[in-house]
């Protein structure tokens, strides 16, 4: 009995316990509602099913959440510009490919255009990083600039049009590569995650970022360049937004500057929070954020499956956010404990009488 309790305690204390529980709850509800939820079938040489869809759709969110995790860890702030930045990146790539008219011919090599788009995202990130690290502007305020101006920039690039790329090859990145049964975004997300984790594991970067995020004064005195690492995490977040922008635009083989990646920054921040990461910086878990991202996408997909319309979706998400935030609140835990305590005391008093 004692042993079971101990094991239970260790499991619940594990840092991934909370995000995994969230995901499990969402999946179980789905399974009850839709018995075919976990079924995956092979149609026309590609894999189909709710689970595949969730993984596929969560790819760009995972990529953004990875970048966001490091931003949160290293600066204790959030980057709210990632949605707008991915729109900029998409606009740059498509403009580079087809100019200011929808078209079916490329003006330049596809690879080069993608590189330009991702680079544009990185430049945006570097701009944020400069504001936060060098000019010491509050992260929320600093990234608010591109949050509002980013879509304007994208509009300028596309000259206000929704630009289409009518070429089959352009869809590969956001859909399927012929002959491969797994959606391409899943591969891209996997590559981003693996490379990031490798860098964090094989170098001291993870340690440095955490140290700077927790106590930048102390970090400086032990020889770390706090400014540099803050700058780097924002630049990296921009890079991630750029890559996500490539997937988003390829999915719909077009760029709509106003709507590409709309509100996705909020999901990315939420993914980090559900992942059990403290939003005030410091210790982080990439794995947690990934599970968080998948959870959010699972929630979205299942709400759609339950015939919730796109306009109602935010309400339901908000409810989930409130529940999650409440569960994580230490103050609430204290309150529950104190209630429990009061209950025990009153019972004791009654016994004493």
């Amino acid at each position, binding site marked *: 009995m004692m042993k079971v309790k101990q094991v239970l305690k260790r499991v619940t204390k594990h840092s991934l316990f909370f995000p995994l529980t969230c995901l499990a709850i969402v999946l179980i509800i789905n399974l009850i509602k839709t018995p075919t939820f976990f079924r995956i079938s092979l149609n026309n040489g590609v894999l189909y099913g709710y689970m595949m869809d969730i993984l596929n759709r969560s790819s760009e969110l995972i990529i953004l959440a990875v970048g966001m995790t490091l931003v949160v860890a290293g600066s204790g702030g959030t980057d709210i510009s990632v949605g707008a930045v991915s729109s900029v990146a998409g606009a740059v790539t498509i403009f580079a490919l087809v100019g200011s008219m929808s078209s079916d011919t490329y003006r330049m090599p596809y690879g080069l255009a993608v590189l330009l788009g991702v680079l544009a995202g990185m430049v945006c990130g570097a701009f944020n990083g400069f504001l936060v690290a060098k000019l010491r502007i509050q992260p929320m305020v600093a990234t608010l600039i591109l949050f509002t101006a980013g879509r304007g920039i994208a509009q300028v690039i596309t000259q206000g049009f929704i630009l289409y790329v009518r070429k089959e090859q352009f869809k590969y990145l956001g859909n399927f590569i012929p002959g491969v049964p797994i959606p391409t975004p899943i591969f891209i997300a996997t590559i981003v995650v693996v490379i990031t984790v490798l860098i964090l594991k094989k170098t001291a970067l993870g340690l440095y970022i955490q140290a700077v995020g927790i106590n930048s004064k*102390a970090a400086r005195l032990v*020889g770390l360049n706090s400014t540099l690492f803050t700058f780097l995490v924002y630049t990296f977040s921009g890079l991630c937004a750029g890559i996500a922008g490539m997937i988003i635009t390829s999915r719909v083989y077009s760029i709509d500057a106003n709507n590409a990646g709309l509100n996705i920054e909020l999901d990315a921040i939420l993914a980090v929070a559900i992942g059990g990461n403290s939003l005030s910086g410091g210790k982080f878990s990439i794995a947690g954020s990934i599970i968080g991202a998948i959870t959010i996408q699972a929630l979205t997909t299942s709400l759609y499956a339950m015939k919730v319309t796109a306009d109602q979706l935010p309400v339901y998400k908000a409810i989930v956010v409130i529940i999650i935030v409440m569960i994580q609140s230490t103050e609430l835990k204290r309150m529950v404990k104190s209630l429990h305590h009061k209950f025990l005391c009153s019972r004791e008093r009654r016994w004493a009488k």
Partner: protein
Amino acid sequence: MNKEKDVLLKMRGIDKKFPGVVALSKVDFTLRSGEIHALMGENGAGKSTLIKVLTGVEELDGGEIRLSGIDSPIINKSPQDAQAYGISTVYQELNLCPNLSVAENIFIGREPKRAGRIDWKTINKKSKEILEKFQIYIDETKPLENYSVAIQQMIAIARAVDISSKVLILDEPTSSLDEQEVDKLFEVMRQLKQQGLGIIFVTHYLEQVYRISDRITVLRNGLLVGEYETSKLPSVQLVAKMMGKELDDLSTLNKDTLQEHMEDREELLEANNLGRLGRIKPFNLCIHKGEVIGISGLLGSGRSELSRVIYGADKPDTGELIWKGKRLTVNAPIDAMKAGMAYLPESRIDEGIISDLSVRENIMIAFQAKRGLFHLLSKKEQEEYTDRYIDLLQIKTSDREVPIKQLSGGNQQKVILARWLLMNPEFMILDEPTRGIDVGTKTEIQKLVLQLAEKGKSIMFISSEIEEMLRVCSRMVILRDTAKVGELEGSELTQNNIMRAIAGGGKHDEG
């Protein structure tokens, strides 16, 4: 004397467990009205924890707390609850808000209001009065962070004294105070005692315990050793009770051998006209290999500031630094580190610990930073280093992977010390290295400093305790009003000489 009637506070059978540690086990503590009660014990003995369960910062696992005048046991769920009972506390780790003004800090949570608005005028005026009681004359409208740790400590004390009505708790309040400030504090404590308050006083300074306290409760490893009347417990016995063994003889400390041949020692570092506007006036200083040099001066005289411009913690705006005969430009601390310097800052919480990182990471971070991003030490190497220093400094922790913030104050300090010892630096700046460290370990650290010097390392030692500096330093720099005014050496190094020099009018003034 009716003993029972005097009892203000009674804690019985207090238990407190943290994961992996039993911090308190069946501890009793009694505080009487009109007494100053010292709570003593080694680092990690459970002193701060006892205070925290009393004031509701931590929840107790067992036992009960009774206050005079209240029939049932009290349970404080938060420090606010405790305040409502008339208990006010200065915690070991100051919990003030650095970017609020001094006055705001004094009145936070109990701001006087007029017509529904915070009455700033009264706040500022009253703050001034409260501070004047301690003879602190500062601008109370400036942000707190403008002032030194010592001043901040005095502000925290002033605030607590102002609130307290029954019990005042001071957890290592004097850890960064000079003798003058300690005198002021004791003066106020005596007044409060006369008014019938009970005061709990935690400190590692034996001399202060014997000067001010009426009674002593000793804890060891979370267990109660006993309660004693101060006048009936000789200090040797007190130390033995805290440590569970006799203290090593201090006479094993021998710095005399060090002082010989100082003249023909190689120069390591030379500061020419080094200074920073508003912090430390330009000074000249020469440090030899194998030397322990002390920096002495009153509060605010620029002790820490002097060391900071050498290390580049604050960038100097005049002068130059010569390191091993060559000019050294320090743009950031990393440059000084690469040259072979180390710097233990004065403020442990602000600039020392990285609270959420583990003991291992906190020890390894400077070494890793110097090695660089791409030369990550393997986990095994890190663990070996960490264990070696946990052992050497006897850091009390249940595991090397626990976050440093869960260690007791003194043990956190040891971790920071370990961080720099590990670097094996040629020149070490130690700003209040023994702050919050218990008597036994303190001697160990002093010994360690002398051993390092014997091996040819140079050390800059800053401490508000002159006695400690006399024990380790072979030369002392005297500061007054942010300027270096002289040096004392050899036979000139006596308590009297130093006191006279730092207060002004000494014959060693350079002019």
